[in-house]
């Protein structure tokens, strides 16, 4: 297929996943903010901005990190390239360009989300509760993903879409986990406290994973179990290893279909091998934040390799 078409498909998936993450970040923030604030904490919302990598752009525009501004920033603001509105609009525009590579169901789902978004933008903000916004975003990304799963031809376009989903999700899960690092940074003595557990649970909740976690692990929520679940457990749908596994699967399929292997495939395999050999204590020994930072960088490098290998049009 045309490299540009593949690129459009890949980005549809990334934008949809990213829109969902923006909504989930909002959700975590709102929940953490419900806790009584104690002196010595960092502002909870600041930690979200840091994790999303948009702190400076936000403060330039809004200044104070209060909930209403955060809602605007993460949901409606077109100046934030990662806001729900920006992502949905971009996903739909990419879909319009490659309309014929999609089924009418997928197009319908994306187009409807876009039309609803425009309608929402016209409503007074006082009528829109935060939970309504975040639920709308997660529901619509699930709908798009479902339509893709149920109706799309399993060809190379399918692989590029799923590469996009997995790559973006790996990056986003790592960033969401890192929120915890920013929240707790100043006070190491909170580790293991009730507050600590509450925050971990909130994190799980924001990934719609707390029930799954209890099924898989049971008992108390501890940082060890959580790290194991979100990083190393292949049963976790947002887990890092699950996403890396997914990338490997689709890169392998592409290599088979095209009859040639490349750098992206090699890099993905390395990453999977590394994760497979790790234990939770290895990760904590390195430091969770350090591990996540390194992982986010590795995923970005893999993304660049995918771009070089398939999407930039310079393949030979």
């Amino acid at each position, binding site marked *: *297929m*045309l*490299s*540009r078409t*593949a690129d459009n498909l890949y980005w549809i998936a990334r934008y949809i996943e990213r829109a969902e993450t923006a909504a989930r970040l909002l959700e975590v923030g709102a929940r953490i903010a419900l806790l009584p604030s104690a002196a010595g904490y960092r502002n909870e919302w600041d930690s979200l901005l840091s994790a999303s990598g948009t702190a400076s752009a936000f403060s330039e525009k809004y200044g104070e990190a209060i909930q209403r501004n955060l809602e605007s920033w993460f949901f409606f603001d077109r100046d934030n390239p990662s806001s729900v509105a920006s992502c949905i609009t971009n996903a739909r*525009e990419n879909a*319009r*360009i490659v*309309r*014929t590579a999609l089924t*009418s169901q997928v*197009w*319908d789902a994306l*187009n409807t989300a876009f039309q609803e978004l425009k309608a929402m933008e016209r409503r007074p903000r006082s009528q829109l509760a935060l939970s309504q916004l975040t639920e709308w975003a997660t529901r619509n990304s699930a709908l798009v993903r479902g339509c893709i799963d149920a109706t799309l031809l399993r060809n*190379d376009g399918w692989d*590029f879409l799923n590469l996009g989903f997995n790559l973006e999700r790996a990056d986003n899960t790592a960033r969401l986990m890192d929120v915890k690092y920013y929240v707790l940074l100043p006070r190491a003595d909170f580790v293991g406290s009730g507050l600590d557990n509450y925050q971990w649970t909130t994190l799980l909740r924001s990934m719609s994973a707390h029930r799954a976690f209890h099924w898989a692990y049971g008992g108390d929520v501890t940082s060890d179990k959580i790290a194991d679940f979100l990083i190393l457990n292949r049963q976790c749908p947002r887990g890092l290893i699950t996403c890396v596994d997914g990338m490997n699967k689709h890169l392998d399929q*592409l290599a088979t279909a*095209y009859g040639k292997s490349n750098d992206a495939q090699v890099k993905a395999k390395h990453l999977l091998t590394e994760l497979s050999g790790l234990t939770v204590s290895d990760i904590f020994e390195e430091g969770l934040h350090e591990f996540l930072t390194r992982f986010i960088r590795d995923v970005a490098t893999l993304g660049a390799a995918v771009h070089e290998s*398939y*999407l930039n*049009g*310079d*393949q*030979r």
Partner: protein
Amino acid sequence: MTTYFNEMFLGNKVREPYRGLKDWMATMPAELRQMKQAEAEDLFRRIGITFAVYGEGGDPDRLIPFDMFPRVFSAQEWFKLERGIKQRARALNAFLVDVYGRGEIVRAGRIPAHLVYQNEAYEKAVVGFVPPKGVYSHIVGIDLVRTGPDEFFVLEDNCRTPSGVSYMLENREIMMRMFPDLFRENRIEPVDSYPELLRHTLASVAPSKCNGDPTIAILTPGHFNSAYYEHSFLADLMGVELVEGQDLFVEGEFVYMRTTEGPKRLDVIYRRIDDAFIDPLCFRPDSMLGVPGLMDVYRSGGVSICSAPGAGVADDKAVYTFVPEMIRFYLGEEPILNNVPTWQCGKADDCKYVLDHLNELVVKEVHGSGGYGMLVGPKATKEMVETFRAKITSHPENYIAQPTLALSTTPTFVEEGVAPRHVDLRPYCLVGERIELVPGGLTRVALTEGSLVVNSSQGGGVKDTWVLAE
């Protein structure tokens, strides 16, 4: 008071081709009609067929209004039209081959040299190059109007990249979905072979260096273009890639598509971008839409470009006047379809006549399109007439004038029920190894009462166009 030919009613009598619609029209309750109309609109929006007008702003997802009342031709009527259209398409192509070669028609004094050689659309870069099968214009869209039972006139020719064919196909699709009974009761010629015929036409003009099955693609200026939907629709129906300039590159003697599997050679390009933007190395150096080096590949036989660069000189409004001459000169035949009588403001006598009769005439800019830069004398305000008088006086050669034609009407659904509205017709003639014409075309309708302007950019709508089987 002008009387207009109504294609359905002759006095109180229903004309033969419309007989099958008489009861349908009479028995459709208003609620059903509204429901169907809403259904049609929903279908159009769902499939994404919209029309964005350049520079108008507003909703980029605007729909062209669709009128459900079909426009009908009998088999005999169509037979004549078909012969006339094909004749015209042949003559226009013969003209193009000639003026980029020896220019016999100019030497013979049948058309003034300056109209051809100093025409903006005449491309020096392709002089002496004969495109495969000697075809320059592969899709000829001929705009026709009707003024009586047997009176058809050609309003203009479109030899470059006539748009609108997606509406012909979608209008039919939607009518068949909504009114299957109508299609059971009337024997209507199908139009859905168009994409396949187009693909065959394009394949038949593959370049000499292509061996085997030619790879075809549609070249679009991009998704911001108002006709992007049509580009992607046709690509999809033909099963070919829809490419932008950035998807193509030249290497050695050929042009390639950038694909995820590496370069893929391209043999035939159905381009929907203007000559000026095709290749920055040959035409406008600032063009970002085209493919650098494409014209060199084309002129050395490595790729075919449809329509061929330079084809526009045949559909210039000033050259239009001479199409009947072309038919006589190249084919030795008399024109089957007539031109509208045209005054060339560039000629002193004509210009005087035009300036004296501005209130009665339609004045057009020679290079204008889409109903802009046009004066409809009888409908124009004093100021508009005076503005045009000044424009014509300062650049007479830029204008032509024609009598205001009594465009035929067909019944059209309006707020109050059914009423006559003015229509035109654009059939799409395909020219490759063979000449093909699907029985039908795009009927455009002026939805405003009394209006003669059918352009979609100015409030026109579209209808399904039927040709009845014998």
